């Protein structure tokens, strides 16, 4: 074989490609909610072990995101939003993404177990399995309820943060789990309403694709209504103070109002003016940040 006729050797993946496999923007929310779960716990945490716990939660989330992208490379190639990711763009070998995901996942669980505690490590391992297998492989391609059940994967970080601090599962970490679990469908379906054409092209049975806009909008409202008692529960049950209670009431009232506007709006995907959906999606991210920040502030300011 001569150099003149040789095929060009494909370039190896850059470290930035490995970094982007971990979905850093999703990871920032995971780190924040995990940290809030830990800080809201009523026990002091060794700063080094606290840092290790959050690092393990973040690395575990990154590992499961890499496994998700390895499995969904073909689907990602069909969607504009994801076509430039390392695997569909051909910048990385699928095996490299899979191995990277497995190493991050296994490493984060082992370090969490050895340094922080095995209960937190078991829940972390289950959350990775939940996202990579139950959500990505099983539910997402099969049912429009994928987001509802898959939302559990994103709901684990504050629970793990709390358990890492206390070593125990009590009512509060379950409530923190429930807040994110019920927040996920309206958050994600608001996004799915204005990027519906992308999901349809990839054949993913997202709620707007399968059940239509009217049904999706109605279900967004139902979940927003359910958010009110769930977000207020820590205050009503006396595990959070008035600062959290007032914040949760105000924030959820706005969430409900924006969801109501989405429920009565009649725009279609591709419309230039999908403002209610975009506004709800943007607000839902802010909602979660402020709600969890209020929980931590309540713990430190009110006690």
């Amino acid at each position, binding site marked *: 074989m001569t150099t003149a006729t040789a095929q*060009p050797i494909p370039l*190896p993946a850059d*470290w930035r490609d490995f970094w982007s496999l971990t979905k850093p923007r999703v990871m920032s929310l995971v780190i924040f909610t995990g940290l809030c779960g830990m800080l809201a716990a009523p026990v002091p945490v060794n700063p*080094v*072990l606290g840092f*290790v716990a959050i690092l393990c939660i973040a690395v575990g989330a990154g590992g499961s995101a890499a496994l998700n992208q390895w499995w969904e490379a073909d689907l990602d190639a069909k969607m504009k939003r994801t076509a430039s990711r390392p695997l569909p763009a051909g910048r990385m070998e699928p095996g490299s993404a899979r191995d990277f995901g497995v190493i991050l996942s296994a490493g984060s669980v082992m370090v969490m177990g050895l340094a922080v505690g095995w209960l937190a490590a078991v829940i972390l391992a289950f959350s990775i399995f939940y996202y990579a297998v139950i959500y990505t492989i099983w539910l997402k391609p099969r049912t429009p309820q994928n987001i509802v059940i898959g939302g559990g994967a994103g709901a684990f970080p504050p629970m793990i943060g709390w358990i890492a601090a206390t070593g125990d599962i009590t009512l509060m970490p379950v409530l923190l789990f429930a807040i994110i679990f019920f927040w996920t469908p309206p958050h994600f379906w608001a996004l799915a309403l204005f990027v519906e054409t992308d999901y349809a092209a990839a054949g993913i049975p997202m709620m707007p694709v399968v059940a239509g806009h009217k049904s999706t909008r109605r279900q967004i409202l139902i979940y927003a209504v359910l958010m009110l008692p769930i977000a207020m529960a820590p205050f009503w049950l006396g595990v959070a103070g008035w600062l959290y209670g007032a914040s949760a009431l105000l924030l959820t009232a706005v969430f409900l109002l924006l969801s109501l506007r989405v429920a009565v709006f009649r725009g279609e995907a591709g419309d230039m003016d999908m403002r209610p959906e975009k506004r709800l999606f943007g607000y839902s991210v802010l909602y979660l940040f402020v709600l969890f920040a209020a929980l931590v502030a309540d713990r430190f300011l009110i006690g």
Partner: protein
Amino acid sequence: MNLMTAEKLDPMEQRKQIIASRNRMLGLVLAGLAVLFFAITIAKLV
């Protein structure tokens, strides 16, 4: 990796640069892990 870089460098040079930057990053991660394990050990002893 932007188009400008791809046009300026020949593929072998580009390959070397990518591998070198990956090795540097891996070195940093391993050094970070070593520091972290020392810190965990000390935190567990206290």
